[in-house]
């Protein structure tokens, strides 16, 4: 039951629970209670809207930063990750395998603002060995959605 609910919500957080109950052929009360349970258990961590800011007046610059760090004894990478993810500018932090340790995704109003954040807040942290900043120039697809796609129904209007 949880899997079905989550798979729908993942694609459409806006769906009403009455509709959810109809399409999954389940009881509305059960769905409501299951969702609130999953919220409490932090299985559902939030509800977001996927926005293409490019089409608005608001300027948003996104950067992906490769960070190499020294893990700390007894705490591994968690402590340093926490010091990084607590900044509001930081949208995502992932621990990586391979050539660097953390992927940090930052959003700011301008490239300068992002660069300053890296230079003044991120790089100076004690355990940070190095950073490499990559700015996002265009988003084609995000969270499984193709941003610019316009879909036209190419099918004949009726067919057997």
């Amino acid at each position, binding site marked *: 039951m949880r899997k079905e609910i989550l*798979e*729908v919500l993942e694609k459409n957080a806006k769906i009403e629970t009455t*509709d959810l109950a*109809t*399409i*999954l*052929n389940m009881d509305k009360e059960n769905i409501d209670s299951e969702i609130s349970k999953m919220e409490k258990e932090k299985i559902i961590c939030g509800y977001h809207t996927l926005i293409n800011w490019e089409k608005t007046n608001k300027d948003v610059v996104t950067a992906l930063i490769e960070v190499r760090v020294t893990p700390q004894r007894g705490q591994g990478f968690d402590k340093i990750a926490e010091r990084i993810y607590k900044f509001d500018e930081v949208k995502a932090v992932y621990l990586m395998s391979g050539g660097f340790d953390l992927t940090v995704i930052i959003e700011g109003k301008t490239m300068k603002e992002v660069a300053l954040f890296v230079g003044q807040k991120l790089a100076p942290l004690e355990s940070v060995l190095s950073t490499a900043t990559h700015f996002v120039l265009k988003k084609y697809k995000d969270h499984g959605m193709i941003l610019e796609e316009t879909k036209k*129904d190419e*099918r*004949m*209007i*009726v*067919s*057997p």
Partner: protein
Amino acid sequence: MMKNLISKRVQAIPPSGIRKFFDIASQMEDVISLGVGEPDFDTPWHIREEGIYSLEKGKTFYTSNAGLPELREEISKTTYRKYGLSYDPLSQVIVTVGGSEGIDLALRAILEPGDEVLIPEPCFVSYKPCTVLAGGTPVTIPLKEENNFKLTKEQLEEYITEKTKILFLAFPSNPTGAIMEKEELEAIAKVIIEKDIFVISDEIYAELTYGKKHTSIASIDGMKERTLIINGFSKAYAMTGWRLGYAMGPSELIKAMTIIHQYAIMCTPTASQYAAIEAIKNGDEDIEKMRTAYNQRRNLLVSRFRNMGLECFEPEGAFYLFPSIQKTNMTADEFCTELLKEQKVAVIPGTAFGDSGEGFIRCSYAYSMNDLKKALDKIEIFIKNRI
């Protein structure tokens, strides 16, 4: 124009009941249609990509008549894996231009003039005309809603004569969405074997069942040697435009079908065959995703139609709903024509699939949730004033 150019045989075939709605609907603007018989999903990209790659590599020549050996091999393996049926890829499988060509080939390969072909209706539109074109005599079995549009042993027995040679079975069904389960198939198989009848089993919607897994009549004891399975890529992998299907059955019949196929068609499109190999090898997850989406839409439609006060048996396969509109006291044709004119929603009258479809309409749910909701809202308004 030359006199008597068109044969009487073709002149006798009535135009499809769907044509009329196509003509009206295509003249109107902003029509919301629940009238199509094909998936709304694009062919999954990895499959399309393989088709493109085959063109880049220069795979632009004929293939062997019956289809690429690798494709037939994969079809055979998948049929065994999914339905427990084993067919020899080289002698018992033929790749055809959609399921439709397979049906035509089989009828032409089997029928002698006067042979009777049993066609349970409502059903897909091509069985009857193809039977007539092949010189056979179609005999309609009207399926009943009270039997959930399944074929019963009693009904079958009633229509069998000395001349009966073929029985069409098409489950999951277009247009009703009915399926037939193992025990139900076993019941009719007894009669089929006893009366020595051959079955053409159109299983093009086999992958699209909800809750219950598809059973092929060929898997019932004694039936494999008297069954031709028609299947294809159109519905399962959303590949209608690629025109690729296949037929599996006794080698004698496949051999005869291949003779007609090699002169009439030569072989199916090569790029489609390469794309199909990718589909059948790596497409299970795509099917699962689409099935989940169809099932959710099915739940929506059943619940909405029942709330509107229309009787509607629960379809367990394909992507159609076949609600009864008898409460409106309109014929299916009137209902659909009025609905199209008044609310600009296109659905297909059940009569397009045979006379026994009177009193029913076919609504396809191969549409996005948003389109379905819009259409349902309009149908609800339409019905409110009429029941």
